[in-house]
C-alpha cells in the first residue's frame, strides 16, 4: 500500500472543497472498499478525506411521503430502521443479504453505491483490464468469467455490478442526492449508473469532489409488498450470482403494479423493463411469469462460463414472482 495523507472534515463544504482541489484525493467513508483497493494498488489516491464526521447519517421522512437515507448512514442502521423495514422491505433485505455483520456496521450506503466491481482481473494489477487501465483489453472476455454479466455488457467490459442495495433502489426509482463543486444535483438512480460501453472506467456521472449526500426513496405504497431474493455459491457472506428485487400488487387475479430489478447478471443494477411490460395487467399466473422471464433474458449474451446465469436468472425471476403472488393471494 502506498503512503497516503489523511484529513478529517466535519462539514460538507470543506469535504467537497478539499477533494475537488486535489485530483489525487478521495473520500473515505467506511473504507471497506477504499482501503481494500488501496492496499492492492488498484485505487491510488495520495490523500484520503475522512467524511465520517459529516452530519449525513440520518434516515428522515421527506415532505411528500418518501424517505431520505443519509449518504453516511450505515448499512446495518438502514437495514434495521423500522420505517425502512415496514415501507421498503426489499431495501432491508438487500442490505441484510450483503457482506457480513461487521462490514455492514462499517459500510455506508453511499459507499455501497460507489463500490467498484469484484472482477478478479480488475483487482489484479498485472492483468489487462479496460476498466482499471483503459485500452489494455479485457481479460475476463476469454478468461474466468463465471461471475460476470450477461446483460448490459460491451466488447470492452463484462464486469457485474456488485451492489445489492443498488438493485433494490433501481426497482424503486430512488434518487441520488449529490453536492459538488458545481452545486447540488438530484440524479435518478438509473442515470447514476453508466453502462460500460466504450468507457468502462466511467461508472457514474459524478465529477471529482462530488459527494453523495443522500438517497431518496419515493413514496410508493406497493414497495411495502416487496422482497429481495439472492442466489449465491454459499448461503451467506457472498456476492450474488443472481438477485431479484420485486414489488408487486395483484387485484382480481391480475397484476396491478409491478417493479422488477435484477442483480448479479448485469453491468449495472438492472431494471427488468421488458419483463415489467409483459407483467403489467397480465394474469398472475406461472405462464405470465415465464413469459416475462423469457422476455427479459432474450437480450442476454453469454460469455462462456457464465452462460448458466441466463437460465438461473429466468428461474429466479419466476420464483420471486410466484412467491409474491402466493403472498398476495393469501393476504
Amino acid at each position, binding site marked *: 500500500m502506498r503512503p497516503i495523507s*489523511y484529513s478529517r472534515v466535519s462539514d460538507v463544504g*470543506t469535504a467537497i472543497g478539499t477533494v475537488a482541489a486535489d485530483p489525487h484525493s478521495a473520500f473515505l467513508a467506511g473504507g471497506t472498499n477504499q482501503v481494500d483497493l*488501496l*492496499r*492492492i494498488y488498484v485505487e491510488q489516491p495520495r490523500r484520503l478525506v475522512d467524511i465520517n464526521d459529516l452530519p449525513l447519517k440520518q434516515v428522515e421522512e421527506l415532505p411528500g411521503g418518501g424517505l431520505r437515507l443519509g449518504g453516511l448512514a450505515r448499512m446495518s442502521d438502514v437495514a434495521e430502521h423500522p420505517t425502512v423495514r415496514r415501507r421498503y422491505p426489499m431495501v432491508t433485505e438487500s442490505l441484510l443479504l450483503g457482506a457480513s*455483520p*461487521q462490514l455492514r*456496521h462499517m459500510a455506508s450506503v453511499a459507499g455501497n453505491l460507489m463500490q467498484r466491481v469484484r472482477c478478479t482481473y480488475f483487482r489484479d494489477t498485472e492483468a489487462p483490464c479496460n476498466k482499471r487501465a483503459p485500452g489494455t483489453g479485457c481479460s475476463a472476455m476469454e478468461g474466468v468469467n463465471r461471475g460476470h454479466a450477461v446483460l448490459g455488457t460491451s466488447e470492452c467490459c463484462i464486469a457485474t455490478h456488485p451492489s445489492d442495495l443498488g438493485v433494490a433502489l433501481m426497482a424503486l426509482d430512488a434518487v441520488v442526492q449529490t*453536492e459538488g463543486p458545481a452545486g447540488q*444535483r438530484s440524479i435518478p438512480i438509473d442515470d447514476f449508473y453508466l453502462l460500460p460501453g466504450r468507457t468502462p472506467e466511467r461508472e457514474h456521472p459524478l465529477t471529482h469532489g462530488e459527494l453523495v449526500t443522500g438517497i431518496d426513496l419515493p413514496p410508493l405504497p406497493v414497495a411495502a409488498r416487496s422482497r429481495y431474493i439472492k442466489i449465491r455459491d454459499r448461503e451467506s457472506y457472498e456476492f450474488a450470482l443472481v438477485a431479484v428485487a420485486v414489488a408487486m400488487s395483484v387485484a382480481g387475479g391480475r397484476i396491478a403494479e409491478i417493479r422488477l430489478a435484477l442483480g448479479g447478471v448485469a453491468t449495472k443494477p438492472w431494471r427488468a423493463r421488458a419483463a415489467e411490460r409483459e407483467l403489467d395487467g397480465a394474469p398472475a399466473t406461472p405462464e405470465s411469469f415465464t413469459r416475462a422471464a423469457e422476455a427479459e433474458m432474450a437480450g442476454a449474451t453469454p460469455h462462456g462460463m457464465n452462460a448458466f446465469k441466463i437460465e438461473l436468472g429466468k428461474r429466479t425471476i419466476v420464483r420471486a414472482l410466484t412467491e409474491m403472488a402466493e403472498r398476495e393471494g393469501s393476504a
Partner: protein
Amino acid sequence: MKSHQAIRTAPAPDSAVVRGPDEVEVRLRVNGTTRRMFIEPRVSLLDALRDRLDLHGTKKGCNQGACGACTVWVDRRRVLACLTLAISCENREITTIEGLAEGDTLHPMQQAFLDADAFQCGYCTPGQIMSAVALLTEGHARDDDEIKEWMSGNLCRCAAYPHIRRAIRRVRDEQGGERASH
C-alpha cells in the same frame, strides 16, 4: 423533482488539516487505556494493534475483509480491523479480545468456547468470540439459523462451527435471553 440541474453553492476551499504521509502522532483508546503512537496514516487498525501496541490477540487472516479473524469493536460495534485505518479511530473506543476478561476471570463467552471445545487451531477464535459477544448484544441469536447467518462473517478453517454455536447457545441461555452486558 429537480433533475440534473445544479444549484450553486460555494464549497469551502481546501481548509482541512493534512496529516502524513509520514508518521504522525495518533492516540487510540484501547480497552479503556489511551495509547500514544507514531504511525503513518495508511496503517490499519489491525497492524497498529499488533505491531505497535503488542496486542497480538487480534489475528490477520485475509487482510481484505473476507474472513473475520480481525474482528474488534469500535464504539461497541463489531467491525473489521484490517479495513479500518487506525488514524480514523481517534476519539473512538476500541475493544479487543484482550479487553474482554475481568482480571483473571474470563468473559463467559471465552469460558464457553473452552468448555464447548469451540476451536481447533484457534486462529479464528479471538474474532469468533468478539463477534459472538456482539451477536448476543445485537439480539441476533434466537435460533441456530439466526446464529449461523449472523456469525457468517467469521470463517473457521477448522470448521468448528457446531461447537462455536454450542458455546453461543450456552451463553445466550445462561443470560436467560437477556442481552449480554459487555
